[in-house]
């Protein structure tokens, strides 16, 4: 284990998610939680106890779950449709495309335990394609918060935003990174650390690893900027362009396949605006072997040392 944060200071962002959802539901009767028998894994037990009528558990039926969400939205409700991200986005992708994205319904898709959070349960339960699938659809902002403060802010933002949203949430413990009371802005990256030699772009459970990598690099005399890019669609073009212009190299890190995710979204901006050397870290186009999420992230070169090593290699390609 290469993460230096003590386990006691790592937080499961699902708690921030449901805490915020319950606080919003307290004052807005239109907020409904919809789930697929995932009351426990989505941590919706408290919501159910407080508002049993507003917790719609459709059973193990994800296609119906998303359709029901679209229908509730048509009827004026604000449904937060919660399920393990692998089943929400994989099983119900056509419902997400037609009923949510194309119909442009006010459905909040909440992919719980995304990425490789289910670690040892294997690739059937990994959700490392969801950035690619959902960001290919018009109308749906794709958001992966990095910590408690950003999760709270993103859930609040989603509730007041009129339209579909995909919130990609994790259960893997992360430290606090953003300040309490953080305000989420769609499509705006947060520069968590400035630097001049290269930029590391990350989100979700990778952001704190990127910060740790920047520290490793600093000790080696390399100045790395770190961008927390919670919004994968619409991507923050200005922040990417500034990173290319001002640091000349970009390394992306994501708990997702390198095909079509955060790295691809950043690269799409880079190639069209200011081509600079890039390296995309993520799951390298394979079904992951057995292991916990943190083990697999290390395995795929995304320990702080791994990220720092890739950054140093990338530096050599700078003109």
């Amino acid at each position: 284990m290469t993460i230096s944060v003590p386990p006691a200071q790592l937080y499961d962002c699902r708690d921030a998610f449901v805490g915020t959802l319950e606080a919003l539901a307290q004052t807005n009767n239109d907020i409904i939680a919809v789930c697929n028998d995932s009351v426990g894994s989505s941590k919706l037990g408290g919501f159910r106890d407080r508002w049993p009528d507003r917790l719609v558990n459709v059973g193990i039926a994800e296609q119906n779950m998303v359709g029901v969400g679209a229908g509730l939205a048509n009827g004026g409700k604000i449904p937060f449709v919660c399920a393990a991200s692998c089943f929400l986005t994989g099983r119900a992708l056509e419902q997400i495309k037609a009923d949510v994205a194309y119909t442009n319904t006010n459905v909040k898709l909440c992919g719980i335990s995304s990425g490789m959070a289910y670690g040892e349960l294997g690739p059937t339960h990994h959700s490392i394609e969801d950035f690619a699938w959902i960001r290919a659809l018009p109308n749906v902002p794709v958001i992966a918060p990095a910590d408690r403060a950003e999760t709270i802010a993103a859930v609040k933002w989603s509730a007041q935003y009129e339209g579909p949203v995909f919130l990609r949430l994790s259960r893997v413990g992360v430290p606090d990174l953003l300040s309490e009371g953080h305000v989420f802005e769609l499509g705006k990256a947060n520069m968590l650390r400035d630097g001049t030699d290269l930029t590391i772009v990350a989100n979700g459970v990778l952001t704190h690893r990127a910060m740790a990598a920047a520290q490793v690099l600093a000790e080696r005399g390399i100045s790395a900027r770190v961008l927390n890019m919670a919004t994968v669609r619409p991507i923050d073009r200005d922040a990417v362009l500034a990173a290319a212009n001002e640091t000349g190299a970009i390394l992306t890190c994501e708990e997702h396949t390198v095909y079509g995710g955060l790295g691809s979204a950043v690269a799409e901006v880079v190639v069209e605006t200011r081509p600079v050397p890039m390296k995309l870290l993520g799951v390298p186009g394979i079904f992951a072997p057995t292991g916990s999420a943190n083990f697999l992230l290390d395995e795929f070169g995304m320990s702080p040392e791994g990220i720092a090593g890739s950054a140093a290699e990338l530096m050599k390609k700078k003109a």
Partner: protein
Amino acid sequence: MTPSELRVIANHIRRRDLQAVFEAGAGHIGGEMSVTDILTALYFRVLNIDPAHPDAPDRDRLVLSKGHTACALYVTLAEKGFIPKDEISTFLKPHSRLNGHPNRTKVPGVEANTGPLGHGLPIGVGMAMAAKLDKADWRTFVVTGDGEMQEGSNWEAIMAAAQFNLDNLTLIIDHNRLQQGARLADTNDVAPFAPKLEAFGWAVEEIDGHDMAAISAVLDRGAITPGKPKCIVAHTFKGKGISFMTDDVAWHHKVPSADQYKQAMRELEEAL
């Protein structure tokens, strides 16, 4: 509106639909002819809707899950006043908002962007739940094809509707016994529907889906079964009203020749 008045409107919708499909050179005329009487009864007798306020919160909802018969829906919406009647001539033309499947974001009166089959009923379940949560009395109707009932998502929704006692939800199955390439019986014979839906906890009624009096009666608010969602198995004919199309699987999305068009139009006019 009386059944005989509804029959006149349905005949007009059939003729306008036939003309639109003939002029566009594409469409799903067989299934449009089978569902026209159902749509006519819904829009001109059953649904509490106002074309001037297509987003009124307390309107009744109709989801045409068999979205490939969009042309029949467009003509019906035009007759009802949701869109201009002369806009039907743009059906399938470049940039027309009337494409091959309905789009809620562009066409007033459309409730969901259907097309992929098996989507309408889950959406209808969510709509009916929203009304229940608000203790509102607006109703939700979903029209599916019969071949479409082969989609597993429909059965997920059927279970949920019964579990949540959605007696404000009505599913109408346009049971014309033909799917795109063959008869249901020769493909995946999901019929008979009534015993299956009853086993899943629904109230079921079977009607002649071209009998306006029967359709009107069974969709009346008074016909609601408290605590149970309602399924109407509407026995229909693909290509209804046009002799050479009727009950012929070839007319799923075939386009009539000029001679066939004239004959079809003549038959519909003579039926008035």
